[in-house]
């Protein structure tokens, strides 16, 4: 049912765990099956220098989390925002149609983490102004 790449990422997922002092945190849920994903990013000079995840979900969700975090590590914020779930699924050697939404979750997690990061930055800037 799953490609070898999916199984490899599932068995040995990269970038797992909670991050100390992240620059942004994205928490997303899957309305379809009730799964959850948390993405932590550390940003320096507009570059995502570190990223980790925690996922409560299926094999495809865990593999997508692992692959997505691999793909955005070292990328600029803009580059990371340009990543689509289709890119992730392709890189994983494809996902069964019923499992495509699991890769959407990873994409949304990244977007939510970046949004959180931007909000925090804005707040910091506002504080400095005062």
């Amino acid at each position, binding site marked *: 049912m799953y490609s070898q790449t999916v*199984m490899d990422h599932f068995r040995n*997922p990269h970038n*797992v765990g909670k991050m100390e002092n992240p620059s942004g945190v994205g928490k997303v849920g899957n309305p379809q*099956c009730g799964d959850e*994903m948390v993405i932590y990013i550390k940003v320096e000079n507009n570059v995502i220098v570190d990223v980790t995840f925690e996922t409560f*979900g*299926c094999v495809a*969700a*865990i593999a997508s989390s692992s692959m997505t975090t691999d793909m955005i590590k070292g990328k600029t914020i803009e580059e990371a925002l340009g990543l689509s779930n289709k890119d992730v699924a392709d890189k994983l050697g494809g996902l069964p149609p019923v499992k495509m939404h699991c890769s959407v979750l990873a994409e949304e997690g990244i977007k939510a983490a970046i949004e959180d990061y931007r909000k925090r930055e804005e707040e910091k800037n506002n504080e400095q102004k005062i």
Partner: protein
Amino acid sequence: MEKTIYLDNNATTRVDDTVAGEMLKYFTEEYGNPSSLYSIGAKARTVVEDARKRVAVLLNCEPRDVFFTGSGTESDNLAIKGVARRYKNKGTHIITTAIEHHAVLKSVEQLSKEGFTYDIARVGEDGIVDIEHLKSLIKPDTILISVMYANNETGAIQPIEEIGKIAKERGIYFHTDAVQGAGKLSLNVKELNVDLLSLSGHKFHAPKGVGILYKRTGINPTPLLSGGHQELAVRPSTENVPYIAGIASALEIAYRDIEVHREKQSALKKRLKAGLLKNIDKVVVNTPEKSVFNTLNVSFVGIEGESILFTLDSFGIAVSTGSACTSGSLEPSHVIMAMGRDHTTCHGSVRFSLSKYTTEEEIDYTIERVRETVEKIRKISPYK
């Protein structure tokens, strides 16, 4: 480990060697059509009728009330649709439960498009049907009640005798899907107070694609198929002689040694349950005390069942899960949900179902591998 540790016997079972051996000759030697009049046909007729008698002995009924079908699903369909359609002039209301197999639930849904109405009885947290609620659903025009004998996901045994008595007092037909009870519980239809009972061969070491329907003398279900006179025209189709011989032998073998199986598998199930609870945190047991001796369903809180299933598969262990992620429709198991468990618990539900081939070594190996698996996947999960 090279060999598969097969702990999904409620999904299907391996065919018993004796059964497989016995069936073979009906493919290649005694392959006649039971309806043919010459010797090889007559011989096939004898095989089929002998099988029917052997099943009737085990069910404590008349041979002519035993029908061979193509599956458990077909038996359920024939019982429910057949009785509802035949007796619709007596009433058009049906009662079933929230934890039935889809073969039952979808049959009832189909009938609701043909002018029937239905109600679904609740189950308690233990997964056992709430009899008082079921009773409250009975109406003057209720013609049929269908309640499974043992649940396929949790193994919970349902109070069939009691419900049968209630149905009998009110003149309502009573069907039980006994697919998961075969080889584990008594199938004495008189003691069970059932009018119709469905079985599926592949759950008790006969092949897939053969079932049995018992119906009480005098009940005449409307056939699902149009065709010849076979099975008293209730189930037309040339009889599947090898499979019919196989299902009868498998049922005999299952009951011949039932005490041995009960003792051995109960002990293994107990060992598995104790091992999981001792070695792993936050385990919710979904199988009640009153359950078939081969089934244990537990939830590992904070992790999703499909990821457990695939990790155990890499260790050669086969189990199943009620997780939404494996269902295709992304709906979690209707059975575990009906027991009032939350979504997360349902997600992490895993069913272990043993058979006569399960060994103590396999159980010990499984406990250890499940412990490792849960630990590993919990590390990935935001819920610890």
